[in-house]
């Protein structure tokens, strides 16, 4: 026991100065430190990059249940659709509620010939709300081809003309020929298409929306060469200023 204090007291100052760890311990430490960057790099990449690989689900929970949801695929049916298509000619409940003019845009006369609804059907009241709705729907479904003001220069039409396919340019909706068409004819054109224009009935399932578009097209036609006197005061000033500038320019 007497020698022990002397050993520690002589060794301690040396230990405090420098204890050399063995090579393997240093190696493990270095390897660990370097390796620890690999997961970090992988994570950093996963956080910023895009990948076609499926999402990583660390906890499955009941995220994916063996049920079919909207528009999923099923091996049961030959076309791969889990949802079945409605039988051809199916009419949704309530879809035919209303007068013939409202539902189709025409009535059949005694000889079975269609008679276009000249004006809006009784179910429709043309007011500001209808026109605003019509404008909104027009901008979604019609503007791509017919253009914002209806003259047929929409962005899709422009591009299709540039690409020079068998594209038939969209009609000018403010043209005299279309102005003279009865409202029911325009409604029917939206519902079922005409010549190279495809039907938009599927995309515009609400009949009121189609009539709203007809109303807005009528508004475009009126606005296209509206006399200056009909404009609201603010626009009137602008239009008159434009006219004055054109005159002086000429």
């Amino acid at each position: 026991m007497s020698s022990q204090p002397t050993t520690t007291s002589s060794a301690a100052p040396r230990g405090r100065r420098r204890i050399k760890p063995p090579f393997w311990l240093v190696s493990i430490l270095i390897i660990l430190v370097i390796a620890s960057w690999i997961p970090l790099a992988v994570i950093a990449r996963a956080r910023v990059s895009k990948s076609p690989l499926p999402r990583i689900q660390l906890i499955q929970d009941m995220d994916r249940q063996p049920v079919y949801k909207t528009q999923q695929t099923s091996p049961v049916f030959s076309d791969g659709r889990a949802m079945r298509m409605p039988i051809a000619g199916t009419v949704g409940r309530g879809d035919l509620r209303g007068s013939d003019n409202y539902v189709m845009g025409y009535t059949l006369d005694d000889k079975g010939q269609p008679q276009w609804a000249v004006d809006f059907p009784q179910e429709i009241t043309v007011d500001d709300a209808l026109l605003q709705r019509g404008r909104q729907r027009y901008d979604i479904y019609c503007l791509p081809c017919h253009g914002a003001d209806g003259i047929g220069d929409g962005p899709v039409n422009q591009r299709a003309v540039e690409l020079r396919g068998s594209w038939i340019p969209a009609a000018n909706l403010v043209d005299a020929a279309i102005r003279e068409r009865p409202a029911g004819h325009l409604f029917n054109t939206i519902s079922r298409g005409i010549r190279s224009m495809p039907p938009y009935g599927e995309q515009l399932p609400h009949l009121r929306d189609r009539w709203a578009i007809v109303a807005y097209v009528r508004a475009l036609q009126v606005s296209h060469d509206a006399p200056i006197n009909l404009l609201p005061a603010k626009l009137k000033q602008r239009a008159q200023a434009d006219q004055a500038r054109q005159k002086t320019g000429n």
Partner: protein
Amino acid sequence: MAETPPTAPASLDAQPNRFIFPRWANLLLPFIIVMAVGGGLYATLIVGLGFSPQATDVGYMPEQPVPYSHELHAGKLGIDCRYCHTTVEDAAFAASPPTQTCMNCHTNVNVANPGNIQKIKESWNTGMPVQWVKVHDLPDYVFFNHSAHVNKGVGCATCHGQVDQMPTVYQAKELSMSWCLTCHREPEKFLRPRDQVTNMKWSAKDHPMFADQPDIAESVAQLELGKKLKVEYQVRDTQYMQSCSTCHR
């Protein structure tokens, strides 16, 4: 083995076969402490960064059967989202369009890459649907309703990102529960006027309400407008919005 009398040992080293810890063993304790503390921090970092939906979910960009470009159609041509995703205002599910919607234009359009259109035409002729891959997919126990959000002024871009700049659509937002709750707790920070829902370039400070304050900060404008819209659109109170059964029915 004969025991040495306790008084005898002159030095411990003198005894053969006796294990003596090497001097570096003194380093093990600090080494273990450093590893435990460092490892703990490291694990937190890995779990925090690596297990977050930003790493596991965001950026999912599946290859589609036809390389349809939203950048061209929604961006360059400016076609409204609802031209194709027609059900979004009326139904819970914003349906992918039927092949007929593609054919509205592509019956007669000559395109740069006819091979792609060929697949659409094939689908049109055979009636076999194009099997688009769903990009934004919530867990099956979440009952998300598109119409409820779109009609209360939540913009498409708020959850789907700048789709008009995506040649191939990818998941831009986390779509995790905590992410959903940021809006369910403070909807005023995200609401916009209903008629601007599909506008990809919308910003709150451009609203006519702030016409006389051109220098207003976006966040300030958003908050002011959002509070107004929240009342106008009768957005439910935050207690209802955070209730479990609101989303998990």
